[in-house]
């Protein structure tokens, strides 16, 4: 077991370069680009829980046999439902809330995905790309809102989640749910404009709204924003969620990889050389 020192350092250098090149940090969306993101503002005071958006969503994504019972029970999104509207028992009686992907500014699923199948587009929607995904479900582990769903019964399963109707957006349309909402509870637009609009609504009707826009800072900011008449935790939203981005949680680890890859071999080689001398001296004695 011997190797020339020069040969070793050559190999080590090559490996270190190979491992450290192309390891930028999770894309830090700057404030500038965040203002350019598009999103949807959901105003819970306007929603009447007609479930119309669920039908429109199913239709827009090719689920033709969609049907709802008359008084639907509490449901979650799943591999056939990208969005659901539930009624919550709150301090102000029954209040509806729509569930769908929050389209985080810095999504955990995007950072988690090892094939870039989960992808935050420049416009705001977080999309899933079929040709890249290998079905590891790490996005499901990572998502703080439990949004990506998996087709367990399929032999070629897909990850199913709201894609903010990216195909419609690319054709100049707006998301199906926002387009069809009869009560105008869903407003599609530039995220910065939506935040201004939300603030204005709170300012104009302070008794109607709680003074908070859910999604402005939650999980580092999301493209989907909520206004509500009751505290958000009564609507099943996690109000203790951190206000910094989720990819930030793994940043420390990821940035330590390249230094360890480069420094540890040098340390190991040093120890090897030191103990080798030691072993030889022992033999001589």
């Amino acid at each position, binding site marked *: 077991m011997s*190797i020339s020192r020069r040969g070793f350092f050559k190999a080590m250098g090559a490996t270190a370069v190979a491992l450290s090149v192309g390891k930028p940090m999770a894309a830090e969306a700057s404030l500038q680009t965040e203002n350019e993101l598009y999103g949807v503002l959901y105003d819970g005071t306007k929603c009447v829980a007609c479930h119309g958006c669920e039908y429109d969503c199913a239709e827009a994504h090719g689920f033709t046999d969609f049907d709802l019972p008359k008084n639907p029970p509490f449901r979650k999104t799943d591999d056939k439902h990208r969005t659901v509207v539930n009624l919550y028992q709150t301090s102000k009686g029954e209040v509806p809330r729509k569930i769908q992907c929050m389209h985080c500014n810095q999504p955990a699923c995007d950072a988690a995905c090892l094939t870039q199948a989960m992808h935050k587009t420049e416009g705001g929607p977080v999309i899933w790309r079929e040709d890249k995904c290998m079905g590891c479900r790490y996005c499901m582990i990572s998502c703080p809102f439990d949004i990506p769903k998996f087709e367990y*019964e399929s032999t070629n399963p897909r990850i199913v989640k709201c894609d903010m109707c990216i195909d419609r957006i690319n054709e100049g349309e707006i998301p199906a749910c926002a387009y069809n909402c009869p009560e105008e509870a869903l407003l599609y637009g530039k995220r910065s404009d939506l935040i201004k609009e939300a603030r204005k609504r709170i300012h104009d009707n302070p008794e109607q709204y709680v003074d908070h826009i859910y999604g402005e800072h939650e999980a580092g900011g999301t493209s989907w924003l909520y206004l509500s008449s009751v505290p958000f935790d009564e609507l099943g939203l996690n109000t203790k969620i951190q206000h910094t981005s989720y990819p930030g949680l793994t940043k420390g680890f990821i940035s330590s990889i390249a230094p360890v890859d480069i420094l540890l071999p040098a340390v190991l080689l040093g120890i090897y050389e030191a103990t080798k001398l030691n072993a030889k001296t022992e033999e001589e004695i």
Partner: protein
Amino acid sequence: MNTLSQPIETKAKQGNFFTFLLAEMKPKGPIFSPFNIISFPIMMLGLVIIFLRFKNGIGSVTNLSQDVPWGLWIGFDVVTGVAFAGGAYILVFMVNILNLKKYKPILRITVLNGFLAYLFYSAALLLDLGRPLNVINVVIGNNYGVSSVLFLVGWHFLLYMLALLIEFSPAIAEWMNARKLHRFISAISMGAVIFGITLSVLHQSGIGALFLMAKDKIHPLWYNSYMPILFVVSSVFAGISMIILEGSISRKVFSDQLDESDHHSHDNIMLGLAKICSLGMFAYFSLLVLVFIHQKNWQYIASPMGSWYLVEVIGFVVVPMLMFFLSYRYHSLTWIKIASVITLLGIMLNRMNISIIAFRWDAAVRYVPTWQEAIVTLTIIFIELWVLRWIVRRMPVLRASPEWARGSH
């Protein structure tokens, strides 16, 4: 040199590798041994279940749900299995870097165990992937998700398998009587050793880092930002406990491969490993206490999950730590074996807690693996053991290397 390695060399000298390989395929032990009688039907059943999994989808044989996307196949086969296989890098570090020659007799079997474990656990991983063919995207480089912990774990995992193969290949070369190849591999193996250890440290900790983004899903007693460090520290004594357990079993099963000097050195090795285990566990326990105080976790202790946490930390860390220490002091090999079993159960408990039990501990419907998931897991382990047995009976893993290969180390 004992008599067993003699016929192998003469066979290889005939020159044709395929006839040699064909001859080596013949079973070398009793066919109807208890192990075979138990493992063979399970493996057959497992293969049927694997076939059904590809025919009908993952949901048809598992209890995985939208809330619990990773079950037994990831939580045990991969997350726990990698920790169990950590012995290879620890022992390689001790023998090849620290020059502790005392441990050299068990080096090859440990490296072989590690390599096979990694090989078969990555096979288990493929079963769990929904679209396994797209795994190529991670390798060929058209879609590198470089900010993904899983991507980095995957690559370090893959390269480490290569390093382990290089570290073990002198034994393959000796088996094939390929002297030139042996010389070449021995020359590059130091590089494999050094990078193997580096890659191990990073993917062992990376498996802990996988769960960093599941902040709101894992019970606060288990979730902390030190998980990568805790994982790498616990892999030290998990790996060594596996060496102890596996060593005491293979000494019985493969006793024909060992000579007198091996029996003499074995006890000495076991005592040394016990000491390292108790020290490693002490470091791990100190870290746990530090995290516990730092995160002000007292509030969670008076709950069912709190008691469960205490069972893990007291029963499966502190107790085996003391057992290792005392059995080292009083030279009790039996207690070392018992302590290693408890330690391995504890590691299993810890990894399963983080990935399954304390993951979504508040979910309405708890995940319990199906019998099919358990059978497939057993199948993977049994196939691995069959391959291990095949190799140990043919290559110089436990027994001494042939005369010509000895000088090169």
